[in-house]
């Protein structure tokens, strides 16, 4: 495959054919020299847990084993999905990054420049997919690079290269979308109506360069639905407006509260040395009449 700078590349991950072999995870770690974390088994077959600084690919094992015996063909025992950075067109991480460390490459992928990132972790709080984590060794944010170095060398990403079932397909995003549409139509024709595409159009974050064919609702795979796929910047205007209104109210209120009222001198028994400050300005008749008889104790 010719990989041409200036063209958008990405992944189409077809979860209907994922077998959970984790070859993608291993290939990713091998190529990117990621040490990985200590294996941690829960109550399933997932021993990596989530995407993080050491796991740029993560195979989700979603247990759908029914509690009661089912008849043949009714049981959907497992949903498996090789998760990865989505390389969003409208990327939340890029929105909030203050240093310019997050850039869009010539392959239209979202890339963290490790020598520019200063580890502020703002991108972590913004990524709606929980993709980014600060690496405990380098102390900068880390995530899938879409094998930027391999692309520059004309090679496809390691995970796609290693996937034995072609669950992970790499290529120009336009071509992948066509493939995905044909695949979902084929599944529907085969009587699998639950198959659906996620991120193949611009409904979610303007389109995902790494999009998926899912076998259940997005939330089952820890993916925000269209309604929940919102950008951090949605709160910019409202947040600053609230700040502005509060600031104006506080300033005006403060000026009113600080108007000098007719305040009696301290009682002799309580008074210390005579204050050296200039005497407060004499209140106007209006101020005098508005002054309370006594402050609340």
């Amino acid at each position: 495959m010719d990989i041409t700078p200036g063209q958008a590349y990405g992944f189409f991950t077809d979860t209907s054919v994922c077998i959970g072999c984790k070859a993608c995870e291993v290939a990713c770690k091998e190529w990117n020299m990621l040490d990985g974390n200590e294996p941690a088994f829960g109550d399933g077959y997932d021993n990596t847990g989530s995407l993080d600084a050491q796991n740029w690919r993560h195979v989700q094992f979603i247990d759908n084993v029914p509690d009661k015996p089912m008849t043949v063909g009714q049981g959907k025992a497992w949903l498996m999905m090789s998760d990865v950075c989505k390389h969003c067109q409208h990327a939340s991480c890029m929105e909030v990054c203050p240093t310019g460390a997050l850039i869009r490459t010539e392959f239209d992928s979202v890339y963290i420049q490790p020598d520019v990132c200063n580890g502020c972790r703002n991108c972590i709080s913004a990524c709606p997919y929980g993709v980014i984590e600060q690496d405990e060794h380098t102390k900068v944010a880390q995530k899938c690079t879409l094998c930027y170095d391999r692309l520059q060398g004309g090679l496809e990403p390691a995970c796609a290269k290693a996937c034995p079932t072609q669950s992970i397909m790499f290529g120009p995003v336009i071509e992948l979308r066509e493939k995905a549409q044909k695949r979902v139509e084929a599944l529907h024709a085969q009587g699998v109506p639950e198959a659906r595409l996620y991120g193949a159009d611009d409904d979610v974050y303007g389109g995902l360069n790494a999009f998926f064919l899912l076998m259940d609702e997005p939330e089952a795979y820890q993916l925000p639905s269209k309604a929940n796929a919102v950008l951090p910047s949605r709160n910019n205007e409202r947040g600053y407006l609230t700040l502005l209104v509060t600031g104006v109210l506080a300033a005006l209120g403060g000026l009113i509260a600080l108007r000098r009222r007719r305040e009696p001198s301290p009682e002799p028994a309580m008074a210390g040395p005579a204050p050296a400050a200039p005497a407060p300005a004499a209140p106007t008749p209006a101020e005098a009449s508005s002054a309370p008889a006594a402050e609340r104790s």
Partner: protein
Amino acid sequence: MSALAEAEHFVRAPDWTWYILFYFFLAGLSGGSYAIATLMRLSNRAYEPAARVGYYISFVALLGCPVLLTLDLGQPLRFWHMLVNTTPGDEGPIFRYWSPMSVGAWALVVFSVFAGLSFLEVFVKDRRRSSDRAEPPSALGKAFNVVGTVAGLFIAGYTGVLLAVSNQPVWSDTWALGGLFLASGLSGSAALIGWLAHYRRDGESSVPGLVRSERLFQVLEVLLIAVFVVTLIPTGALGQAFGYPWFVLWAVAAIGLIAGIFGPGSTRNEITSGGVVAVRRSAAAAIVPATLVLIGILALRAAIIFSAQ
């Protein structure tokens, strides 16, 4: 866009903890103190001694801000990357108006100029022996303070906007945090100035005005807490923000508010048997309500920061 219905979040926590908590706290006090000091200067020359206390607090509190922010970074020696882009081919100053962290970094630089110069001004004036040591600044000086106040108010409150501009539960489910942090920063600043003004021989006459303003800021704070709650209800994040163990911190915040709004005390005026209002009692007694208010605003920030992560 209206508030999200049944918002679901799959985001990872950024692990902003103690450094950030105390940065938010000090930023609120620094910006708030500067603003209150300027309001006092604009109100009446008799407030000048207490206003100077405000400028001192503002500068001292500000000193800790960049230190805490830098220590929180994964790569502290790259703190300057907040201001300068080092991307090859794109080197130069970097300002991203859509990123509150970028705006805040620059605002901190700008505000430090105002806080630093105002500190120098009052420090020099306080060391004069002549009779004009209590003189308030000129109109130009006041204009300088007003501009600095805009920056100070921003510093005190932008931290809440920074939290909201994310995809974290609680933080991003509301738009009230900027105003809330500003109001609480102002109330804490008024309490702190009101307490420390007792230590200036000529500062105590300002205490009643400070008490009134502190109460007003705290009423504003209560209103914004109500807005915070109302905005969280439809998103389902209310339980996360106020559930165990965070309700303990909210209780501490409430005690601070009660101490400020209703509390009797030393910095409060008192009704004597003759119906006369006393101005103050003692600086030592003033520390109790001021401390409660300050602990309260720290607890409020802690509840918001930690409950979302």
